[in-house]
Every structure is written in structure tokens, then in C-alpha cells.
């Protein structure tokens, strides 16, 4: 595998750190150069070329996207920051969670503007399935359902970051629109025992989220957009894959081959049972 590809991982601290770390280790093992960023220092410095700064700053973005090993064209952004925006706001603006909306949206906007300038064409962004919690649990909610985020920062920050990124894939005034895969994740649960699905129907293991990110990157490299009717925006729901899970991962299974690690070790072993 070539070592001239760079994965730029945002949101690599706090609630995003474990996911960032697993993604980085896996990609690093495949020869990717890992550059990470967050608003705070973290253990990411041990496994990545870590940059501390604010994605809302054009100057920081410019520095962050400069001198990428392999160049921008071979880089992929793994944008975890929208899931960390509420934690960022809690530190920078205690008592004013609405600031997370600015952090998530303006940070995404500046980052993706920087990608256009740097020639980076591929982004895998994370969002949250919490935007669908308003639907009653008995409904089989899929990617074809309209998000219904609650009027709170936890729901709105990742959802509005989605809307921001989608425009970069379809603006006719942009010469080379981005290709963005957005993974709406169930609530992440860390820990070592991923051999069984989590008991919380709205939760998933962080290792499985990392797995989905890796598969999304591979699928972008193949370049088949047929399942998205040719659009450069791909949205996939990624959850635990358990039969009782609140949200189905069936489309992610079909499109990028996602199945959770626990299913691989279960008696079926085929991954065909992924919800």
C-alpha cells in the first residue's frame, strides 16, 4: 500500500478521541500518514501529527492543510468534529450550549472551503442518529426519513454540520464539488468487549464505528456512486447491527459492506444478519 496518502482526522479529543485513535491505528497500519486536529491537546500526539486549533479559523485551516504528504488529491478528511462540538462549547462557553452550533457549522464550512482550495476531494463525516429519536420506536426509520432534530445542541450541531457539508457536494458554482460520505452513528460506547452487541438499543461499539469509517473510505476510493443515483453526497445509518437495535444499518451493509465486529464472531459468521 502506498504511504503517500494522508488521513486528516478532526475532533480527535474528548468524546471523539477513542474513535479517532482506532481509525488512525487501522489506517496507519495500511500505510496512511495520519494528521489529526482538535481544539485541545490529547493523546493523539502519540499516534498522529497532531495540530491543536480551531477549525473556524481560516489561518489554522490553511496551516492544517499545508504540506500534506502525498498532496491534497490523495488525502481524505475524516471529520469527527461535529460529534465533539458540544464538548468544545462546554469548555469554551460554559452555560451556553448554542455555541456548539457555531463551532460545528462554521468549523465544517471553513474546513470544507479549505479542502476545495487544497484539492482535497473526499470527506467522511460523522453525524448522529439522535436526529431520528423523535420518531416512535416501532417505526423502521431509514436514510429515506426526514431528520427531526430536537431544538438542542446535541441534536442540532451534527445535523446542521450535515446540511453544511451537503452543499459542498452539489453547488453548481463549485468547480470540483466534494465527495462526502456522512455516517450517522448510534451513540458510541467504548470498551473492549465488542464480541456482543451493546445492551442499549441506541448504542454501538466505537470499534464498529471505526470499521464503518474505514469501509466508507474504501468505497469512496472505488468510486461507484450508483447507489446514490450519481450524487456526491452519501448518507448511511450505522448502528450496532443487533436485531433489536433501534436503527437499521441495512443500507450501510449493502453499500459499503458494513457489519459489526460482534457479528463476525457470532455463530452465523457471515454478516448477512446485519440490521
Amino acid at each position, binding site marked *: 500500500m502506498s504511504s503517500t496518502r494522508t488521513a486528516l482526522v478532526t475532533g480527535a479529543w474528548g468524546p471523539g478521541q477513542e474513535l479517532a485513535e482506532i481509525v488512525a491505528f487501522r489506517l496507519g497500519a495500511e500505510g496512511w500518514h495520519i494528521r489529526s486536529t482538535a481544539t485541545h491537546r490529547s493523546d493523539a500526539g502519540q499516534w498522529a501529527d497532531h495540530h491543536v486549533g480551531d477549525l*473556524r479559523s*481560516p489561518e489554522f485551516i490553511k496551516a492544517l492543510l499545508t504540506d500534506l504528504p502525498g498532496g491534497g488529491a490523495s488525502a481524505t478528511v475524516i471529520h469527527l468534529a461535529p460529534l465533539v462540538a458540544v464538548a468544545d462549547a462546554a469548555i469554551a462557553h460554559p452555560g*451556553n450550549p*448554542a*455555541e456548539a*452550533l*457555531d463551532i460545528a*457549522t*462554521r468549523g465544517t*464550512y471553513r474546513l*470544507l*472551503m479549505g479542502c476545495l482550495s487544497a484539492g482535497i476531494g473526499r470527506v467522511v463525516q460523522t453525524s448522529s442518529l439522535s436526529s431520528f429519536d*423523535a420518531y416512535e420506536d416501532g417505526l423502521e426509520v431509514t436514510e429515506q426519513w426526514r431528520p*427531526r*432534530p*430536537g*431544538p438542542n445542541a446535541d*441534536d*442540532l450541531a451534527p*445535523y*446542521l454540520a450535515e*446540511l*453544511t457539508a451537503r*452543499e*459542498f457536494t*452539489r*453547488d*453548481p*458554482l*463549485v468547480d470540483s464539488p466534494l465527495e462526502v460520505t456522512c455516517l450517522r452513528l448510534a451513540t458510541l460506547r467504548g470498551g473492549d468487549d465488542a464480541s456482543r452487541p451493546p445492551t442499549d438499543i441506541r448504542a454501538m461499539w466505537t470499534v464498529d464505528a471505526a470499521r464503518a469509517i474505514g469501509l466508507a473510505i474504501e468505497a469512496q476510493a472505488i468510486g461507484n456512486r450508483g447507489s446514490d443515483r450519481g450524487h456526491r453526497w452519501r448518507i448511511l445509518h450505522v448502528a450496532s447491527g443487533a436485531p433489536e437495535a433501534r436503527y437499521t444499518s441495512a443500507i450501510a451493509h449493502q453499500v459499503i459492506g458494513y457489519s459489526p465486529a460482534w457479528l463476525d464472531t457470532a455463530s452465523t459468521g457471515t454478516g448477512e444478519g446485519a440490521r
Partner: protein
Amino acid sequence: MKIVVYGAGGPVAEAAIAALEVRHSLRLCDIRPSSEPHPSLKGDATGNASRWWPSRPARRDHEFRQVDVTNPDQVRDAAEGMDAIVNLTVVRPDPVMAFRVNLVGAYHVMNAAVAHGIRRVVHTGPEVIIDHYWHDFDITAEAPPRPGTNLYLITKYLGQDVVRSFAEVHGLDVVALYFHVFQPGDAPERMKGASPFLVSWADTGRAFQAAVEAPPMPSAYEPFIITGDLPHGRFGSEKAKRLLGWHPQDRFEGHWRRPAIRLGI
């Protein structure tokens, strides 16, 4: 009715206030002190301001508060005791304040509505249905927004979704008025480069009056195209007529005549 108007210093607010102050009690809020007019309302030596901007024939004094819409406490306090909210706050080119005013500010305004039990909120914004529907016709306010990456349009679009979320979850009654180009009703020529999505200042004011006074809407967040009755068949105001009882009076007929006919040749 007691109405708080956020962003009360700009030209659109001037048109809204002109219509609202006839029958309602207003609390005007703006980030600028009332003694400092909005830059676009100052006019110039040629008298452009008086010629192009809205007038207030029934002008009277109102309570004024200096409010920064990005400050949640100021926004919430200003809504206390009010029956309705009109949000006209906007920042266009500033890469920081566009997000903070158009998006975070909208969040604070809606939070204030919930905090004070105010159901009728008149939200405002630009159309986000022109560029991406450039070759389409019969475009309605329900067309999915397509702001592109334009800073102003995308931040107002995100703000709309914040407002919609509050409205749906809290059962509010939001009237969202979408505008594009404003001109005086007697403007002799159309604005250069403008799309056929045009309304006069006087009709703009009447739209706010209708939005505040209209009966409850069918859904928690109802968007409306606010344009005059223009002959192009691209954007229509049928929904505003039906649900708000708003009927634009200025048709700008002279703008769409062939030059020879316009000149009487």
C-alpha cells in the same frame, strides 16, 4: 398586540415597522443604538435614501432596546411580556458574524419565544430557491432549500432549520417570510440582474402585518414566498394570499414591457 422586533434598524424593518406601528405596540431591538441609523438608511448627498428606502408615514415613537442577538440573556429579556416576535436580524458578508447572527441568533430568538410562551414568530430570510432552480418554474416555498456554499444563503438556511426544529417540537406558530429583491412600488426600472422575485416596500410592510395577524397556521413552520404578482410563472405568492390574506398591490408592470412599448413607439 405587543410585538418585539429584533434587527429593527435595517431597511426591511423600516418597511415592517411602517405597517405594524399603525395597529400594534412595538419594542424595537437592534445592536446599534437608536441614534445611529443603519448604514444603508443614511442615504447620500443625492438623496438616494429617501428615494429608494421605505418610508413611515405614520411614524411614532416606540420602546427601544439595544440588543445583541448573539447574547441569549439580552434576547430573552427583550421578549418578556410580548405577544409576538419578528426576527429581522441578518449579517451577510462577515464570515464570523454571518454564522453567529443568522444561525446562533435564530436559536436564541426561538429559545426566548419558548421561554415566554410566545407562539407566533415571524422569521425572515432570503430565498434559497433561485440559483439551483435556475431553469425551473412554478417554484413554491416548499421547494427544498438549495443555498449552495454562499455564506449568506447557507447561514440563513441553517437558521431556518433551527427555527423549524423549535417550532415543531414546541408547537409554535412560525410564519417564515422569504424575500429576494425590494424596490419602491413606483420604481421606473427593475434592479439590474434581479430575478423575478420582487416586492415593493409597501407590500413588504403589509406582509409583516398579515404575518402577525393571521390565524394559526396549518403547521408549526410555514414558509412563504413574498413576491409581487409578476407575469413570469417562476415564483408565486398564492400561498401567502391563501393563508396570510396578503395580496400584493404593486405589480411593477412597466418593468416587463418591451422597450418599444414602454416608450410608446
